[in-house]
């Protein structure tokens, strides 16, 4: 049974369509990266799954239970939710807030005390645990947001853009915390930042204009869509030979495209195996003196831009 299953989800705001028949499923125990440009429908999806918003049509299930709005109590017990900008009561302290959340879940006094201490340690808020939340920094509030979402040890954790508002250090810390959750619960994390997905997510779903374009395991996605590229840099002494060599290269059947920037040449291959064998000898035959030859690791960014670009053009 998948942790999350979404079938033909549609959501319209007036005439605008935020979700247009979204369908996907998230395997249990995975860290799922829900990737898409701003305005693609990521937040709307999470709000429907948490019971905050209603789908116009379509259905969704979490742990086999159908999602409704307002959220059902039994589902509320097994999920955790961190919105993009979590808002707290400024007059409470982090301990007050987590204790309040624990009370909502009906936890015992000792259970709450232990869990609060454990979470404050996890999100590194011990030093400020007795300070008013109103005086905490943005990064601290984000970490408190993560802690409150984990108070009930959720089976499924929803994180909406958990790190996009943070500075690089805060981003690194929160991503590390998410990484540590692997195996404890299913994490559904929306983001528009590819590097974040690459760091922590094992499965990726790409959404654009309210539709899911691709859903796959991260390595599988890279293998399927990423086009390997090679970078060569010529010694300035032989730079004069570059134009004619590049000309010849472009005519080869195993080459998809060639880009030149000064003495740097970037070759995208259509047939990787041939390129691996042929590219270097070809450069040497042309008399080039190389200062660098490198196989570029395909990045998720390349894949993302290719997929979103491709589908965008078709419409």
């Amino acid at each position, binding site marked *: 049974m998948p942790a999350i299953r979404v079938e033909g989800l549609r959501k319209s705001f007036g005439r605008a369509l935020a979700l247009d028949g979204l369908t996907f499923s998230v395997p249990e125990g995975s860290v799922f990266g829900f990737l898409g440009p701003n305005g693609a429908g990521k937040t709307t999806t999470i*709000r429907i799954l948490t*019971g905050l918003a209603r789908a116009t049509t379509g259905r969704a299930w979490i742990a086999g239970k159908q999602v409704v709005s307002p959220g059902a109590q039994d589902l*509320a017990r097994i999920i955790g939710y961190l919105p993009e900008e979590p*808002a707290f009561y400024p007059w409470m302290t982090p301990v007050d807030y987590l204790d309040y959340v624990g*009370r909502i879940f009906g936890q015992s006094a000792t259970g709450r005390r232990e869990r609060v201490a454990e979470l404050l340690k996890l999100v590194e808020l011990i030093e400020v645990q007795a300070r008013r939340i109103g005086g905490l920094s943005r990064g601290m509030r984000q970490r408190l947001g993560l802690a409150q979402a984990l108070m009930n040890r959720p089976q499924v954790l929803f994180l909406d853009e958990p790190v996009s508002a943070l500075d690089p250090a805060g981003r690194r810390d929160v991503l590390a915390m998410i990484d540590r959750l692997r195996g404890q619960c299913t994490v559904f994390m929306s983001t528009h930042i590819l590097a974040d997905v690459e760091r922590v997510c094992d499965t990726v779903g790409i959404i654009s204009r309210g539709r899911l374009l691709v859903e796959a395991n991260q390595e599988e996605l890279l293998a399927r869509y990423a086009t390997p590229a090679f970078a060569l840099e010529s010694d300035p002494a032989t730079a004069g030979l570059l134009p004619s060599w590049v000309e010849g290269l472009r005519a080869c059947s195993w080459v998809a495209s060639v880009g030149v920037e000064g003495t740097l040449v970037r070759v995208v291959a259509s047939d990787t195996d041939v390129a691996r064998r042929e590219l270097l000898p070809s450069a040497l035959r042309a008399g080039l003196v190389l200062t660098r030859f490198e196989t570029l690791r395909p990045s998720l960014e390349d894949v993302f831009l290719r997929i979103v670009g491709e589908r965008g053009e078709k419409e």
Partner: protein
Amino acid sequence: MSFQVALRKELLEQWRTTRLLIVVVVFLALGLSSPLLARLTPELMKLVPGGEAFVPLIPAPTAADAVAQYVKNLSQFGVVLALLMAMGALALEKDKGTLALIVVKPMPRGAIVAAKFAALATSFAIATALAAAAGYYYTWVLFGSVEVAGWALLNVLLWLFFLVYTAVTLLASAITRSQVAAGGLGFAAVVTLSVAGSLPRVGEYFPGQLLVWGATRMTGSEVRSWPALVVSVAIVLGSLVLASVALQHQEL
């Protein structure tokens, strides 16, 4: 269970945001100043240039004047405070997003509405009780003894009167998404209720009649208005139910 958890948070909020303190201080001040003002009116007139001439025209102030002052001041400030304290209760939480974080947890929305009302009712109960004690003492010192049972009834009716406006404003706060809109809507409801309450015949069924009941009990010719009492309780319960239903249907 959920209600108790929510109520605990709301009471704590009343305390920590000093809202309880504000109502208590204002009500205490009104409880003290109303009898004083009634007693000192002739003396104050003498301080106004040329006012001396009017003093013989004013009848000597009595305990009834003190009661009338008390009812007038407390009811006016009470309504304003009910509006100020309840208008943001739900609207601000929706606007800021604090509510969204709570309702995704096993906390029924109706329990939140009920808890907010109960906490405000508690604040008003404490403040009214203190104002009653202060007002009773000053009236006794300045005018002689006052009937305790009547005074207690008057203050319970005043409290109920505040609850009507608290509940109606809470409903306004549940419907709207901004504190300002809730305040506007609540104010419109206050005006409607008081205009309707001043209409002949119809007025007897409105919450304003509770004040008449309490005041006449103190002057001896008690006008018991059970219809107004029933209508007031109905407005409170109806507003709370509607507020819960409204919140239930909203996307937060």
